[in-house]
């Protein structure tokens, strides 16, 4: 079964043409400057040993690091226009931040709050005071917001009714007064969130509500996640007071925009994960000696790393293409995002698996950070749609129909 990408749109009979004008697949000087700022912050505050130590603590995320990234560097507001309190940058800049965060599996709610939640709000009517106020709060980094959908939800889930792999608007019901009832499982950064953006079935169809996470009638049950650096929780709403943000087609479009933006930019995080794994593997195998030679001089190993390098180089092109399509609101965005996810997710997993294997015994231990990257890569493979679901989406988008 193929998930409809846009409700009611007829299938194409010809492949989607490549975008025109051509996408810019390079990094601008401005983007490189942003990268340098983020990288030096993370080098100081989020090296793998620090991340590892934090996992043993009770804090769900690194609040100090988040404040520096979100507020001091202004990372939280990159996607928000200046007149709404943000930096007025684009998905291209946010993608660079995510590459760096992926490179050190930083435990901060950047993807969930600064990307997915912000994109959902930007899909609503920003002239509404409620929407504008929330956007300003998220952009300033003072508030963490989370879209209340399972982490595994793929783009397309915002179509009418629940679809496989995501519950769309089907899990929560809203009464006429905005009271929400329902349960949403496996929400990323649920425990860190101060504001929840909740897709629900209202009295007049789908609608998007904002709920204070601390309000009566909201319960967050954290559980033990595969990826410790991106905590998950189940959300239960029992008469929680929701403030209406958008209804009907607008609400659906807002959620779809959030999922598409999230999936497209997740590819950049996956690129960062893969880059760290490859660089660390090259470093280790150049230094580690066995049989009287650095193990990296054995052809059986160096070929595996060279093949991985090519995959990472291709992942960079695919991830940049998705970020550029999102930034320019290209008509090719759906294809670019599906290609980026279908391609980058397996590359990150393979890079992490190769990293672990080529480190030998040390790679299998808790002390070495390789496991953090494997857990993030594997969890990212499920996040915002598996590669298989994105390939299914492509089947429709580029007219390669199933039998």
């Amino acid at each position: 079964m193929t998930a409809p990408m846009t409700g009611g749109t007829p299938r194409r009979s010809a492949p989607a043409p490549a975008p025109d004008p051509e996408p810019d697949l390079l990094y601008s000087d401005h983007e490189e400057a942003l990268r340098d700022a983020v990288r030096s912050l993370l080098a100081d505050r989020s090296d793998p040993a620090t991340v590892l130590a934090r996992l043993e603590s009770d804090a769900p995320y690194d609040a100090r690091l988040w404040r520096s990234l979100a507020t001091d560097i202004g990372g939280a507001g990159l996607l928000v226009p200046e007149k709404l309190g943000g930096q007025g940058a684009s998905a291209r800049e946010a993608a660079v931040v995510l590459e760096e965060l992926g490179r050190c599996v930083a435990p901060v709610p950047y993807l969930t709050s600064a990307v997915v939640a912000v994109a959902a709000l930007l899909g609503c009517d920003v002239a509404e005071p409620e929407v504008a106020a929330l956007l300003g709060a998220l952009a300033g980094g003072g508030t963490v917001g989370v879209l209340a959908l399972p982490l595994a939800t793929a783009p397309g889930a915002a179509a009418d009714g629940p679809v496989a792999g995501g519950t769309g608007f089907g899990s929560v019901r809203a009464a006429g007064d905005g009271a929400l009832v329902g349960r949403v499982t496996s929400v990323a950064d649920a425990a860190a969130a101060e504001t929840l953006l909740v897709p629900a079935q209202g009295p007049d169809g789908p609608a998007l509500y904002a709920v204070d996470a601390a309000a009566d009638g909201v319960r967050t049950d954290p559980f033990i996640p595969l990826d410790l650096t991106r905590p998950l929780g189940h959300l239960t709403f029992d008469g929680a007071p929701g403030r209406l943000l958008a209804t009907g087609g607008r609400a659906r479009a807002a959620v779809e925009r959030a999922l598409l933006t999230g999936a497209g930019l997740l590819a950049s995080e996956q690129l960062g994960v893969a880059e760290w794994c490859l660089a660390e593997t090259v470093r280790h195998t150049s230094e580690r000696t066995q049989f009287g030679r650095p193990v990296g001089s054995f052809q059986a190993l160096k070929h595996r790393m060279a093949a991985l390098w090519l995959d990472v180089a291709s992942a960079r092109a695919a991830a940049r293409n998705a970020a550029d399509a999102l930034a320019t609101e290209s008509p090719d965005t759906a294809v670019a995002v599906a290609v980026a996810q279908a391609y980058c997710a397996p590359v990150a997993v393979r890079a992490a698996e190769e990293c672990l294997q080529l480190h030998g015994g040390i790679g299998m231990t808790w002390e070495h950070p390789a496991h953090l990257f494997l857990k993030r890569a594997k969890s990212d493979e499920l996040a915002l749609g598996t590669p298989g679901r994105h390939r299914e989406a492509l089947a429709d988008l580029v007219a390669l129909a199933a039998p």
Partner: protein
Amino acid sequence: MTDAADLRRRTAELLAAHPAADTGPLDFLRARFDAGLAWVHFPEGLGGLDAPRALQAVVDEELAAAGAPDNDPRRIGIGLGMAAPTILRYGTEEQKRRFLRPLWTGEEVWCQLFSEPGAGSDLAALATRAVRDAAGNWVVDGQKVWTSSAHQARWAILIARTDPGLPKHRGITYFVCDMTDPGVEVRPLRQITGEAEFNEVFLTGVAIPDAHRVGEVGEGWRVAQTTLMNERVAIGGARIPREGGMIGVAAENWRARPELRTHDLHQRLLKLWVDAEAARLTGERLRQQLSQGQPGPEGSGMKLAFARLAQEISGWEVEFLAEGGLTYDDWTLRRPEGVDFTGREAGYRYLRAKGNSIEGGTSEVLLNIVAERVLGLPPEPRTDKDVAWKDLPR
């Protein structure tokens, strides 16, 4: 500095003086060369204007729009891509004046006499000998293989061993060989596809004047590196459309033949489509880097990706065609002028693609190059580096 506007003006002047419609193709190409609009990054007087290489596209577009004849670059690819940059860098002034103009106009086709039956990936192990005679000229004996265009070529670039007493990389010298000389024998080499794109070339007592030596005696390996680098830099230039190349043929087949579709083939096709699109984007990114004057290392990997994709897609296609995959279009011995992946049937593509991971550097050698030069991994241990060539086991 020559800029785009200047090139447009010069192109317009060329077209005004030699209207495309009533000038013979060869006359036009010669005039274009003399106007410096052949390869604009070459020096003045040698077909260029010392302009940035990226501006070639400006000239090409204007001339194509005017319907001007081109020099059929596919037919003379080895001359353009390998011989010309090497002669430009290492050739004497006399060699540049003699060879570059007819090379570019296509009046003289070039081939490349590098590979040997005993020296493929280990090219520096070559055994073809060049011995100096009393007059200082050279006599060459040996056998070369995988030589495209040898049966049409007027000239060849040739590397031969001039000092077997030195380690293998140091005793090689680079020459231009006259393919019409007595002692040069060209035989077609029939391939897995049934056709003969390549040749074997037997060299028996071939006399080469010292004036046709390129670079110093014993410096042939270094000169050959220029040739080989240019062979692999061939990517770039034109934008590749989505579904360009072999994946487009496979996708069209899928759309046209619903009765052959299976779920398994569908899953695999989608995966190949994504891989092909990612490879296209990687090439596009490389092209953008080149046009900004910042070539990335991606070029080293593009051939690897292309070879793998071509083999997987063509294998998928034969399987997709079901009973149709059991047939072959034509086993006749033919001498094509180039490889045409999309002009023949799936079986041909499947068989020809096997060469993609071997020709122009095997995938294994390219993986070593990426590992050592791009990733900086420690080199393979070498046992032959300091041993005289004549003492190496063969």
